[in-house]
């Protein structure tokens, strides 16, 4: 009996040691290879060629991941449920959550080849995570299943990978516009601003009539970068980043920074220090926004609802216009981008069924109607018609989208939102925060901004 125990112990130990050796071997081999190749190590979907739509599908389980708020989660879960009813045998496992740290978690999945079959992606992810064009499946391969003709060529072009393949379908286009808490403006006895002059005047009126804590607009560091870009693009009539290169001189950037700081000086926007002192995780959770002391925001047209819903009872949330005369001319300087897309991982074992899910969510009358405008106004023509017919387009989002698309003059380069610029240690936070905290002047800030954007452009 004793010998048997020893024999068993030795056997188990030997097996565990062997399994360790196996792990070690695999780890060292992956270490030797370039990490960008990790995603290609298992890429069953990458080499499938064009998948025919023969009306058949496999019984299988596919995974679908997205980020968003509660209402988006509810709508998407409902759509997934209906998809599974329509295609019995396909099981969709869902993974969803809030944006916070979502990107880092998905990045690790893309890198390790364990990403979901269908992924909600940001436009910038294609540059960041698919620099070799081998993480997201070229959707041309599943064009018999996903009706790509429902999207304009321009919008599809924004999600192209380095090889010219379509890395994802755009769910919606988006841009930023202004939104106002009209109740505060009523209390101040003025209308919501439509021009830069009116906005400046509102700053003074708020201060005099309502008090020092009241501002017509609140802008964080990244909001300031966008608003400054609108100003510069309007004034100089050119995009901030064109063909991957910074298109403005240091002097021109200084002009933009002076413009932002003039808004702070005119009591139009609170300082970054003031916003930091509020210690709110985001503006929609800031009590000063909720009770109307911050009476305006610059936000994506696809995301106003969380602000609208956050406002205190009885307060009126209205969609504003893009400011006229921002750059002293008729230009708006507004840019738009793909708000987000749906993509299939090259590691997917079931690209056909994954494509069927995307087709259902974006183009199918039933699926698109359930998804509604939770991700913005649907970019797919069929999806838009179905959503509109079902009354699923939110009025606020629709109004904002119309204003943004009518004012749009440029397409945002994904570099503008790269981590080096937008990240928590990025250039925007450093430059706009430092200026507001009076750590340096606009000339020094312009140098930092110029160097930062130039470095991000590479």
């Amino acid at each position, binding site marked *: 009996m004793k010998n048997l125990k020893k024999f068993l112990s030795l056997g188990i130990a030997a097996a565990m040691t062997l399994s360790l050796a196996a792990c070690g071997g695999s780890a060292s081999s992956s270490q030797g290879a370039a990490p960008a190749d990790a995603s290609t190590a298992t890429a069953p979907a990458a080499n499938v060629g064009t998948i025919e739509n023969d009306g058949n599908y496999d019984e299988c389980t596919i995974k679908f991941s997205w980020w968003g708020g509660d209402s988006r989660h509810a709508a998407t879960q409902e759509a997934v449920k209906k998809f599974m009813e329509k295609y019995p045998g396909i099981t969709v496992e869902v993974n969803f959550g809030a944006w916070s740290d979502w990107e880092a978690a998905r990045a690790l999945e893309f890198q390790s080849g364990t990403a979901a079959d269908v992924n909600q992606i940001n436009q910038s992810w294609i540059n960041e995570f698919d620099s070799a064009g081998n993480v997201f499946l070229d959707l041309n391969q599943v064009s018999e299943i996903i009706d790509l003709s429902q999207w304009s060529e321009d919008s599809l072009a924004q999600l192209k990978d380095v090889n010219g393949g379509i890395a994802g379908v755009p769910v919606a286009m988006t841009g930023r516009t202004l939104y106002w808490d009209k109740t505060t403006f009523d209390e101040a006895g003025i209308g919501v601003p439509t021009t830069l002059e009116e906005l400046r005047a509102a700053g003074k009126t708020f201060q005099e009539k309502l008090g020092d804590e009241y501002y017509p607009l609140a802008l964080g560091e990244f909001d300031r970068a966008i608003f400054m870009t609108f100003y510069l693009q309007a004034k100089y009539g050119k995009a901030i980043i064109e063909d991957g290169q910074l298109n403005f001189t240091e002097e021109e950037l200084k002009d933009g920074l002076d413009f932002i700081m003039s808004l702070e000086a005119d009591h139009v926007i609170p300082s970054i220090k003031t916003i*930091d002192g509020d210690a709110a995780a985001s503006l929609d959770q800031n009590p000063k926004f909720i009770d109307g002391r911050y009476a305006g925001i610059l936000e994506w047209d696809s995301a106003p609802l969380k602000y609208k819903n956050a406002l205190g009872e009885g307060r009126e949330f209205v969609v504003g216009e893009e400011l006229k005369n921002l750059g002293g001319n008729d230009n708006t300087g507004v840019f738009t981008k793909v708000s987000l897309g749906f993509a299939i991982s090259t590691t997917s074992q079931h690209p056909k069924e994954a494509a069927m899910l995307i087709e259902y969510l974006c183009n199918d009358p039933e699926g698109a109607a359930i998804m509604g405008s939770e991700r913005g106004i649907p970019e797919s023509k069929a999806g838009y018609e179905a959503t509109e017919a079902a009354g699923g387009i939110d009025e606020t989002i629709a109004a904002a989208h119309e204003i943004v698309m009518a004012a749009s003059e440029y397409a945002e380069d994904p570099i503008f939102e790269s981590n080096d610029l937008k990240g928590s*240690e990025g250039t925007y936070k450093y430059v706009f925060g430092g200026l507001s905290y009076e750590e340096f002047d606009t000339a020094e800030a312009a140098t930092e901004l110029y160097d930062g954007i130039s470095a991000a452009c590479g």
Partner: protein
Amino acid sequence: MKKWAKNNVGFFFIIPWLIGFLVFKAYPFGSSLYYSFTDYNLFKGMTKFGLMNYQEVLTKRQNVTALAITFKYAFMTVPLKLIVALLIAYILNFKLKAVNLFRTAYYIPSILGGSVAISVLWRALFKDDGLIQQMIRMFGATPPSFMTDPNWALFIICLLRVWQFGSTMVIFLAALKGVPEDLYEAASLDGATKWRQFFSITVPLITPVIFYNLITQLVQAFQEFNGPFIITNGGPRGATTLMSILIYNAAFKAYDMGLASAMAWVLFVILLFFTAISFWSQKHWVYYSDEG
């Protein structure tokens, strides 16, 4: 063979632990050292090998500032926490009414640990117009802006850790219970005051426990992450950006594993240095009863 197996069978029993150690500790430890000499980015691969990451960690303004703040944080938090924990343990060692209730109450913050919920609560307490500012205003004083003043911001992060002194206190309490009563009686007969008794009897006899707490708290302080990440997110203007936050940002925001590994190794070497200094210094101030 039989004799060999008999003599070494114990070794095989620890193989499960050994596997865990090798896979989850030794391998990451070794690979991070290797990566620290490369420009390994999760999505761009690795093209260079050299000391560039260490050069960046030790020369780039942002990193040097974070190192300085980490030192400041550790050297504020550790002594404060040890003093508060020892003081409260000393008081709770007396025969007081409802002493167990007090012990439990003081220990509770430690159970909560560095949790997200407590950090969120801390943020709500110290924000502008938060409870602490309102209380200060009630006394007619003008409160500082805890979240935007760099010095205050770091202090409130320290305060959170100091507030969680319960576990350290319990260890001190156990040590205090081990100090022989007859020494105090003899000192009393010789006319020693409580103050004198504390410094001449209590402190010397519990120096091994002070030493233990010093090492564990030092390690914990240099690794602090939750508090500054959630309460201030490294702000204002980087005033609470400890090295751990920079490591996280480099690894999981910029995916620069080479730089993140180098930062982690610099932090490890610093910690090793201070631990070694502490161990070296103990012969001058730590009293072990078995040394006679």
